[in-house]
């Protein structure tokens, strides 16, 4: 913390510090005494500790220290990010529940609603990729079904170091994908999409962000606020073990050599119990047996009970001696902070307990009363009658200091943006497309999504592999399109524009499928906020996200901040992942990404500046990560989105694929290559001569301007499509035809480029499997 922030904070301290009521002194026999050393171990700084003393009017007990440490960790308290997050647009006619609950909720037609949320599980996955990723999926599923929503899709956003080196990157990638798949597949929720990216900054600190989407009837919407003095608190689900103690504070530290020694904290996921918990929870909610329910996520019983109490404006009293444990002799400290998975905290009227237990028993689960709701606002914990914790509940949640760190653009970032010195391209332009398609960042992610069940629930209209995943809502005409996106390279170079670009890309992907963007959730992965250059990235990226969301009318309904993503080699590229939901009014109108029928017309929508700053072409072909990326034109983006949705609704399109990484050339190639299961390869015969006459050919082919897409339509639809584009103010360029011969031909002025589709196809689909053929990717090749 800088001196400036400290003095502001000290002023705040005296202000709130005096008001604390003097409380009785508490000593717990056998507990470690609280020494400065112990305080430091708990990651609490001087200011925070003095606030605790001020609040309690005494030294905290060891268990209380653990409680503060967890709830005042960055992960739970958002102490560095709160002021910035407040600037997000969160309102809109479609918003039923904005940030602050377990998941955001948006209104859909016919009394339906969608709950969705994304969350990080980066640090656990760095230590144990399989269990880390699996439990990440488990946690996000619970966040959604506690809202009363049935999970209908999951997505994931992943970042690793390069696949070629060091080998651990392959091990992490393989383990994470298997962990996500095994968990979601077993619970029976289709994985509808995601993204994977490889860049050096993630070596040593991979990112694993999981998103879940659930459907509910609006009337079943459940909120996690404890209410009703005298009501009972019950633990439902798995027994509590010693796993994951201090996960929340672990997630709020930089990874170091010592992280290895934190290994005993690894949590093990049990998707089978999760499935039972899901069914039992939904049954408890829809049959109105309970008042509130919350997942025991980070900081386990502590955060779930304290947060539910604070939301309901009540106190709670818990006896940890009543919590079913997996091991004997667990202390209140351990029980309160355990992050054992697949557990829920439920609030209910005492008279309902037998019925609740009956429902749980049907699903082979137990529901155990462990405490009650009180009227004095205290967060009180005893262990077999012995008081261990007594803290004013609201202040426990709200009095964590807020920090306003300094923000200043880093010198290195400024230099990278302004010094434009790409090397010589290592291949010609034809070779460049092949090189890009072979790059794991652009290549097909088939190796990943074929390990995920994408069709369970029999509602998948567009599986992974297209711009967005689409499901239909059972019994209705409408469906949901969903995607997760972030181009971290752009954010690293220009956080504000990069933040805008992430939202714009997500919206484009959703619109390309024919759906109207409705709202977003975000997972903000950054380095240490205590470093001015990192906080600058954070603040600016959030500003960009806000501006884009305002422009598109897609409010932020929730999200997650993951700071301290650093390894000894430095911070990760700033990665604010956007998860977006779109509404497809009629699933019949969904638009796929690939050319479909020979002789269809091909159009390019939108304009290009040819700017190559931050492009994949410069990064992969010219070995230069830098330059000034093209600015995001939010207005043009919005016009394109509206046009794509209108064109889909008018059934004018045979395919639509947006331009993103790799620019127009990659978009065209992907549209020609098609999905992995089509038997033959089509081709295209295109002439881009008049598209951007003033732009050099490399910029034309590989520049990454947004607000663009490639679409195809029948000959008959061409005329109305052009008229519709004009109406929406979207530039439209007729590029040529889809052909049956398997060649992609591209003319630009006097130059003619030509590729065999079959060759491109092999490159594109084999790039990742080829790199993952190393026999050492899996420890013992799985269990």
């Amino acid at each position, binding site marked *: 913390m800088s001196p400036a922030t400290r003095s502001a904070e000290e002023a705040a301290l005296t202000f709130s510090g005096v008001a604390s009521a003097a409380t009785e002194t508490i000593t717990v026999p056998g507990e470690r005494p609280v020494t400065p050393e112990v305080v430091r171990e708990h990651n609490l700084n001087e200011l925070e500790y003095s606030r605790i003393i001020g609040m309690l009017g005494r030294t905290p007990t060891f268990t209380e220290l653990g409680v503060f440490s967890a709830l005042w960790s960055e992960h739970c308290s958002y102490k560095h990010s709160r002021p910035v997050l407040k600037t997000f647009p969160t309102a809109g006619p479609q918003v039923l529940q904005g940030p602050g609950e377990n998941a955001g909720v948006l209104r859909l037609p016919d009394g339906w609603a969608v709950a969705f949320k994304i969350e990080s599980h980066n640090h656990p996955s760095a230590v144990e990729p399989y269990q880390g990723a699996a439990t990440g999926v488990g946690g996000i599923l619970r966040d959604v079904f506690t809202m009363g929503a049935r999970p209908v899709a999951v997505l994931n956003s992943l970042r690793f170091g390069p696949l070629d080196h060091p080998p651990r990157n392959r091990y992490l990638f393989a383990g994470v994908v*298997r962990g996500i*798949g*095994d968990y979601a*597949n*077993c*619970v*029976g929720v289709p994985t509808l999409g995601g993204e994977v990216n490889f860049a050096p900054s993630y070596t040593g600190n991979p990112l694993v962000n999981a998103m879940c989407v659930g459907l509910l009837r609006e009337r079943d919407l459940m909120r996690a606020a404890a209410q009703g003095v005298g009501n009972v608190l019950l633990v439902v689900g798995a027994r509590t073990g010693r796993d994951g103690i201090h996960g929340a504070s672990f997630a709020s530290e930089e990874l170091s050599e010592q992280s290895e020694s934190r290994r005993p904290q690894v949590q093990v996921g*049990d*998707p*089978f*119990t999760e*499935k*039972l918990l899901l069914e039992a929870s939904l049954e408890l909610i829809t049959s109105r047996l309970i008042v509130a329910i919350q997942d025991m996520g980070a900081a386990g019983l502590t955060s779930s009970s304290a947060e539910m109490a604070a939301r309901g404006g009540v106190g709670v009293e818990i006896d940890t001696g009543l919590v079913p444990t997996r091991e004997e002799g667990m202390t209140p400290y351990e029980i309160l902070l355990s992050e054992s998975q697949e557990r829920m905290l439920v609030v209910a009227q005492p008279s309902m307990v037998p019925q609740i237990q009956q429902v749980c028993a049907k*699903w*082979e689960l137990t529901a155990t009363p462990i405490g009650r709701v009180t009227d004095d606002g205290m967060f009180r914990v005893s262990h077999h009658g012995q008081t261990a914790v007594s803290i004013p509940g609201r202040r426990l949640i709200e009095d964590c200091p807020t920090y306003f760190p300094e923000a200043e653009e880093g010198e290195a970032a400024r230099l990278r943006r302004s010094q434009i010195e790409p090397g010589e391209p290592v291949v010609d332009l034809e070779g460049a497309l092949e090189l890009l398609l072979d790059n794991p960042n652009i290549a097909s992610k088939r190796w990943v*999504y*074929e*390990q*995920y*069940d*994408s*069709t*369970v*629930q*029999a*509602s*998948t*209209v567009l599986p992974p592999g297209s711009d967005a995943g689409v499901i*239909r809502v*059972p019994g209705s005409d409408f469906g949901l399109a969903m995607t997760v996106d972030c181009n971290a390279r752009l954010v690293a170079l220009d956080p504000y524009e990069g933040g805008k670009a992430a939202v714009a890309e997500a919206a484009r992907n959703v619109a390309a499928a024919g759906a109207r963007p409705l709202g977003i959730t975000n997972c903000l992965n950054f380095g240490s906020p205590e470093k001015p250059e990192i906080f600058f990235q954070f603040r600016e990226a959030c500003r960009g996200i806000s501006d884009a969301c305002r422009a598109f009318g897609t409010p932020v309904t929730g999200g997650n901040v993951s700071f301290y993503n650093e390894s000894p080699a430095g911070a990760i590229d700033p990665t604010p992942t956007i998860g977006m939901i779109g509404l497809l009014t009629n*699933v*019949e109108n969904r638009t796929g990404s690939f050319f479909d029928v020979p002789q269809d017309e091909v159009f390019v929508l939108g304009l290009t500046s040819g700017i190559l700053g931050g492009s994949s072409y410069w990064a992969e072909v010219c070995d230069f990560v830098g330059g000034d990326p093209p600015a995001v034109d939010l207005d043009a983006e919005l016009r394109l989105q509206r046009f794509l949705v209108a064109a889909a609704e008018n059934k004018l399109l045979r395919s639509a694929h947006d331009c993103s990484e790799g620019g127009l050339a990659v978009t065209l190639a992907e549209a020609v290559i098609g999905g*992995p*299961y089509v*038997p*033959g390869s089509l081709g295209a015969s295109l002439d881009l001569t008049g598209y951007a006459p003033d732009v050099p050919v490399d910029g034309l082919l590989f520049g990454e301007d947004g607000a663009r897409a490639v679409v195809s339509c029948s000959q008959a639809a061409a005329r109305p499509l052009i008229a519709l584009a004009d109406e929406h103010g979207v530039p439209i360029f007729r590029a040529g035809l889809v052909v049956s011969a398997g060649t992609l031909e591209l003319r630009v002025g006097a130059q003619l480029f030509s590729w065999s589709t079959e060759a491109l196809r*092999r490159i594109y689909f084999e790039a990742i499997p080829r790199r993952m053929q190393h026999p050492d990717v*899996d420890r013992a*090749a*799985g269990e």
Partner: protein
Amino acid sequence: MPRVAVVRFPGSNCDFDTLRAAERYGSQAYFVWHRDTDLRGADVVILPGGFSYGDYLRSGAIARFSPIMQAVQRHAAEGGPLLGICNGFQILCEAHLLPGALLRNAGLTFVSKPVDVTVEQTDTAFTCDYEPGARLRLPVAHGEGRYVASPDTLRMLEAEGRVVLRYVAATERSPFQPNPNGSANHIAGICNPAGNIVGVMPHPERAADRLLGLTGGSGFFTSPVSSHQDSSNARVSSNEVG
């Protein structure tokens, strides 16, 4: 309308999909809980896909002991149509209602993708609406779908025409190994000698809806309806004669 009982085990997750597909094609479908002991007058029984008991130990190994399985065995022994899909197929093998076993995929990873299969046996309760040799595209989604059996059993299955579905062999045009799991003889589904018990790894219930782009699986749900009509017609006519 035939009455179709869909058995739910803890961990079943294709239960609703299967129920809806059966309903869509003209059955009266309902759930039966694994702890029940009575199939409530079912004409047809389906064990749906999923991860019964988490697939812990071996897929299907624990589910086979569920109380409902005695009623299921009785139903099958009396010639009642019984279909196991994916995890249901695994349970049928573990319960020895069908021979062989389903082991971990040869590629060692879970495989989720559409595959092409041919219908090789149409004289069963669940495939009689297909043309012999019909080619279907059905999704697979499993980690343990590699069908194995002793050489003798394999010979017997082939000789008796009990291979119901077979993965289509690789061709020039479909470069990706179509046998997704390394099954012996590319077997994707088998039946018992009488043809009333059928087990398949691919998911017909996920390919039985025009909106989802695949409809090849619908025959698995229309066939029991057709044979039910035939047999009730038969019953009616024999009554008339009698």
